[in-house]
């Protein structure tokens, strides 16, 4: 993973920029092959996102969950853990918030915070299972988090169906208004877009990520554990505790994504047939951002803009929105393999340097 961390920091800021351009270029070429007009498509995409207040607000709402899950995955990466389970932690966080939102009745200043805290805790605990199994039993977290994603899906469905179901609807009761995390004045300002506090919390998450890992003792410990667990042991830092702690924090971040989808966007939880994909998208966002908090923020913005804009692209230019996944994939690819970009740049500029190319 070390290489990954350096990708963004080591190479010039040019690389991500060129990567985005190249990714868009790949998308354009594929559109041309399919007989679509890439210029029209990208213009529709941008118009959709920046065209009016409503869509811009909704784009922010689309960025929020992947920013959370991106931070979650990146946080675990920093501690040397590959958390494929953000999806399950997202679902569990969502469920925790729904349970509180539906079954508990409190004034707003208690209700919403309680729902947020419980959701984050439940997500964190769900992540901690994988951390504990790794620490105590040496079970590879990649497997356990994959399995826990499925378990979370079915467990959440059970909880919704058994305890929270609104008759006749395939979903829970609506959460109480007191648990809502919407920002009504901002929504009105944004022409009824679903603005909620989650976006602000996600930004706080970025700051937390940075301060916690680089400025606190515990963060220092987690980074040592992630970078060299043997040295951590020798330095008197408990690797096992670090693993569990990191998975808890990672899970809580992913859980918050789910929390705010319920409290800020949907206000209920459906019996779900499959995964939403926000957790998996978080992996992509983390990688796009080189596991740097700022990078993750930029990655989430890019991801959110492209995903939300994709709808407009198919609306305005009839381009299948799947193309956007190819574009995002290509961008990550070029970010991760800066060698390709340098190689390409060299080809283009025609200069041949004597040193080893890559």
């Amino acid at each position: 993973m070390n290489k990954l961390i350096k990708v963004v920091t080591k190479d010039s800021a040019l690389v991500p920029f060129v990567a985005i351009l190249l990714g868009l270029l790949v998308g354009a070429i594929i559109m041309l092959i399919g007989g679509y007009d890439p210029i029209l498509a990208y213009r529709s995409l941008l118009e959709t996102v920046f065209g009016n207040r409503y869509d811009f607000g909704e784009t922010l709402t689309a960025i929020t969950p992947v920013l959370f899950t991106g931070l979650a995955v990146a946080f675990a990466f920093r501690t040397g853990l590959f958390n494929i389970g953000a999806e399950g932690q997202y679902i569990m966080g969502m469920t925790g918030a729904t349970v509180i939102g539906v079954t508990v009745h409190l004034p707003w200043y208690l209700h919403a915070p309680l729902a947020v805290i419980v959701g984050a805790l439940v997500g964190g605990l769900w992540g901690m299972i994988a951390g504990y199994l790794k620490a105590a039993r040496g079970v590879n977290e990649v497997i356990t988090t994959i399995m826990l994603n499925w378990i979370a899906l079915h467990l959440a469905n059970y909880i919704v169906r058994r305890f929270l179901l609104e008759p006749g609807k395939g979903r829970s009761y609506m959460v109480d208004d007191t648990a809502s995390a919407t920002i009504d004045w901002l929504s009105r300002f944004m022409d009824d877009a679903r603005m909620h506090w989650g976006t602000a919390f996600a930004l706080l998450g970025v700051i937390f990520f940075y301060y916690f890992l680089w400025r606190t003792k515990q963060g220092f410990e987690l980074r040592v554990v992630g970078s060299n667990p043997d040295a951590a042991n020798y330095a008197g830092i408990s690797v096992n505790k670090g693993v569990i702690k990191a998975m808890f924090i990672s899970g809580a971040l992913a859980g918050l994504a789910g929390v705010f989808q319920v409290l800020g966007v949907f206000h209920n939880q459906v019996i779900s047939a499959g995964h939403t994909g926000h957790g998996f998208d978080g992996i992509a966002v983390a990688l796009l951002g080189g596991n740097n908090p700022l990078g993750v923020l930029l990655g989430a913005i890019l991801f959110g803009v492209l995903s939300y804009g994709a709808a407009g692209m198919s609306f305005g230019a009839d381009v299948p929105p799947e193309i956007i996944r190819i574009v995002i994939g290509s961008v990550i690819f070029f970010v991760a393999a800066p060698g390709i970009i340098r190689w390409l740049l060299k080809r283009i500029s025609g200069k041949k340097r004597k040193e080893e190319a890559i």
Partner: protein
Amino acid sequence: GAKNNNGGGAASPSASPSESPSASPTASESASPSETVDGKGFKFAMVTDVGGVNDKSFNQSAWEGLKTLETETGASVKYQESKEATNYLTNLNKFVREDYNLTWGIGFLLGDAVKDAASKNPDAHLAIIDSVVEAPNVASITFAENEGSFLVGVVAGLMTKSNKIGFVGGIDIPVIKRFELGFVAGVAAVNPDAKVEINYTGAFDKADLGKAAAASLYNAGADIIFHAAGGTGNGVFNEAKERNKSAAADKKVWVIGVDKDQSLEFGDDVTLTSMLKRVDKAVYSVSRDMIEGKFPAGQVTTLGLKDDAVGLPETSKTNVPQDVLDKVEEYKQKIVSGEITVPTAQ
């Protein structure tokens, strides 16, 4: 705050469980207008759930309804696919904000989104399939799947040789429960000795689970399976086909399809009949009502046997003997007249 519904992203359920790919009876055949209406200048739109407009299921069916409307009346029509649950509301709003005359939300997953769009835009008109939205500017269309399922239950009850019948459901949610309860009641009405084994796979999109579920049901002695499981049902068909390849004639197994005439897709060597659900017809006729100024705003329309919105396809006669079809017709009359009340899910 804004209300919406958060179904699964890449893999969310369609309320309507079939995704059988094939050319089903086109809307123009069945939903043909009695008199011509001029719809020029009218704009209609629909927003799909995450299944997409070519899901070969109810989204597609709805789109066919709109396209027929376009041909018949000259109205302009458009659709927007939803990639994930958060898009439901934004997509609906896209049309509402462009002053479309009527915007459809297809599928129960869009219920909350339609409600939200309607309350924020009281001048707009919206309609929803498979869900009830209480708003003065929304028309809600639901289907009495239990009635149609009752009839295919009658077929199954009369035609089973083993007295064991299977039901494969997607997820245990109210819509699917209606299929199950109607079907079980239909079987019981004509064949109290027959036992219906229920198997919910927990997914609408996992053909492998459907296949495995069908395999265990057939292995346990069932000879007919009714599926209400969307793409999962493809696995049920594949398992049946496979068994029939090698089985003796008297050991043949059957599948009862759902939503559309699935014999057109999977062939009539395995498809006994199907439980049709005419979303195209509903979309067409309500949209047409709008042009004619008869839009059922604020009303809930439940389409059942009496409207021919659910039931068996014509092709059933290939495999279902006439005496059975007569029985089906008999029960249909009883249900329409109210003599029999088919249980439904709550």
